[in-house]
């Protein structure tokens, strides 16, 4: 065992890493339930693709650009291809850097997967893979460096416990740009495009919440006070968001909705992400309650616009992340976090540091994603044809269906595959 390694911290971080990785398939389930049945697999596969692509780019250069050195804008290439990442802890850490690397990789993965919510049901799978690879390096690694890796926001004093900057605002505002570049689904605004399975949505949200205990609880990188505080705040904050969301649903529609509840869980978890280890349990509960308001308002407003940011990544992640980052500036408490007070405890400067992150992150994420997708779009089509979109992305992109019955399916023996159809095609005339 290397000097400086704490076995308890390491044990927890191994588990936390696995919990966060599980959040990505959970997100896939959540998203899959929100789309129409003909796009179930494609939507789920975008999350699985994020695990594939972002893990490789993270190991190649992403981790190094985020965490090697303390350049203002971006890190170095000293850890590219896992160079020097081994059993020794990073400076100041108590866990092997290999675990730290894996934990951070799972954050990059889910952030890439989150953006898919803006473009589901029409973006070509191949174009999404290219986008995922480039975005994970050019946007995620840079924002992670700013907030976690010693970049300018971190050295300036911005507090971001578990990823309000790179994960939540990074995905939310990138999603808005992606929705604008890729364009709306062809029936958007003319037909009701409804979620096909609300049970998936609730189960996905529940599993996301479960995984989020690793996401926030692991972001103290050990078993000390910050991790414990963030862990418990991850229970308290989303519960309060749920209660307020129920009330808003009751006021607006006289009924508490299931998909609203699933959304509220995500919004509450997002809001506590940046603030988890910095605010007291009491303030975390207030944060959860208040965070429901702007996200709810944006969801109501967004569906009246022409912007088809399909699964409301901006409302759930961008907005609640923005809110959580600013909340730290008001209610951070050195008595609880041992780091800094917010405005409410006499340190107005902290609010300024938080506001800086809340302005710079959306601007960078939006502009970079917009330009990146325009460039990819110049090389390859970003979206499926109208005909393919109507047929459904599952059959067109993957040659599979989520709810196949087997009726009318003719088994092709290996010799037949690739030959002309067995059943003669009738004369279209």
């Amino acid at each position, binding site marked *: 065992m290397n000097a400086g390694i704490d076995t308890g911290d390491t044990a927890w971080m191994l588990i936390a890493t696995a919990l966060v990785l599980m959040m990505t398939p959970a997100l896939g389930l959540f998203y899959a339930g929100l789309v129409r049945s003909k796009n179930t697999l494609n939507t789920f596969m975008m999350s699985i693709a994020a695990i594939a692509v972002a893990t490789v780019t993270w190991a190649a250069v992403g981790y190094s650009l985020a965490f090697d050195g303390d350049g203002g804008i971006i890190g170095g290439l000293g850890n590219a291809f896992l160079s020097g990442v081994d059993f020794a802890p990073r400076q100041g850490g108590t866990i092997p850097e290999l675990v730290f690397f894996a934990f951070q990789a799972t954050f990059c993965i889910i952030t890439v997967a989150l953006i898919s919510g803006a473009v589901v049901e029409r973006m070509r799978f191949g174009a999404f893979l290219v986008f995922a690879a480039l975005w994970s390096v050019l946007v995620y690694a840079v924002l992670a460096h700013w907030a976690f890796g010693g970049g300018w926001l971190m050295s300036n004093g911005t507090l971001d416990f578990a990823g309000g900057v790179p994960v939540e605002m990074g995905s939310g505002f990138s999603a808005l740009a992606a929705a604008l570049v890729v364009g709306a689904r062809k*029936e958007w605004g003319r*037909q009701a495009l409804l979620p096909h399975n609300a049970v998936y949505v609730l189960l996905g949200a529940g599993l996301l919440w479960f995984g989020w205990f690793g996401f926030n609880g692991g972001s103290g990188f050990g078993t000390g006070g910050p991790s414990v505080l963030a862990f418990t705040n991850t229970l308290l904050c989303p519960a309060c968001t749920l209660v307020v969301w129920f009330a808003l649903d009751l006021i607006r529609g006289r009924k508490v909705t299931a998909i609203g509840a699933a959304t509220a869980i995500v919004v509450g978890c997002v809001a506590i992400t940046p603030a988890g280890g910095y605010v007291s349990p009491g303030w975390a509960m207030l944060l959860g309650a208040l965070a429901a308001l702007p996200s709810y308002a944006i969801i109501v407003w967004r569906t009246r616009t022409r912007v088809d940011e399909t699964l409301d990544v901006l409302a759930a992640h961008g907005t609640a992340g923005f809110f959580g980052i600013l909340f730290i500036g008001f209610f951070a408490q050195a008595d609880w976090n041992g780091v800094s007070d917010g405005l409410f405890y006499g340190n107005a400067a902290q609010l300024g540091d938080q506001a800086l992150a809340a302005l710079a992150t959306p601007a960078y994420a939006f502009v970079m994603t917009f330009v990146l997708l325009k460039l990819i779009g110049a090389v390859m089509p970003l979206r499926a044809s109208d*005909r393919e979109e*109507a*047929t*459904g992305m599952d*059959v067109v992109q993957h*040659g*599979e*269906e989520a709810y*196949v019955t087997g*009726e*009318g*399916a*003719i*088994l*092709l023996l*290996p010799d037949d*595959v690739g030959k002309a*159809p*067995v*059943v003669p*095609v*009738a*004369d*279209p005339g």
Partner: protein
Amino acid sequence: MKLVIGIVRPEQANQVLEALHRAEVRGFSMSRVQGHGGEVERVETYRGTTVQMGLSEKVRFEVAVSDSFVDKAVAAICEGGRTGEVGDGKIFVVPLDHAVRIRTGDTDEGAVTPVSR
């Protein structure tokens, strides 16, 4: 009286509904069916098992109308269902012997589109 049966693509079903509504056809039923027309075969693969999907999802509209409304109903289904590619479906018009509105006991022309009251 005729029964107009329109079998269309599921993704066109909403357009057909709108077209029927615009044509003031009131009262119809729809069901999900599977069928085979002249579509190009879909080949799907599940863990090495490759299959050719001989049946496609379709939506079947059944509209009972008086003789004067047959052309309107057929035109509406055509308008809503057409994409111009193989697989748009078919319309069948068949004679209808008798119709009863259960609530009132109205029969025949009084029980189908156009609705008189």
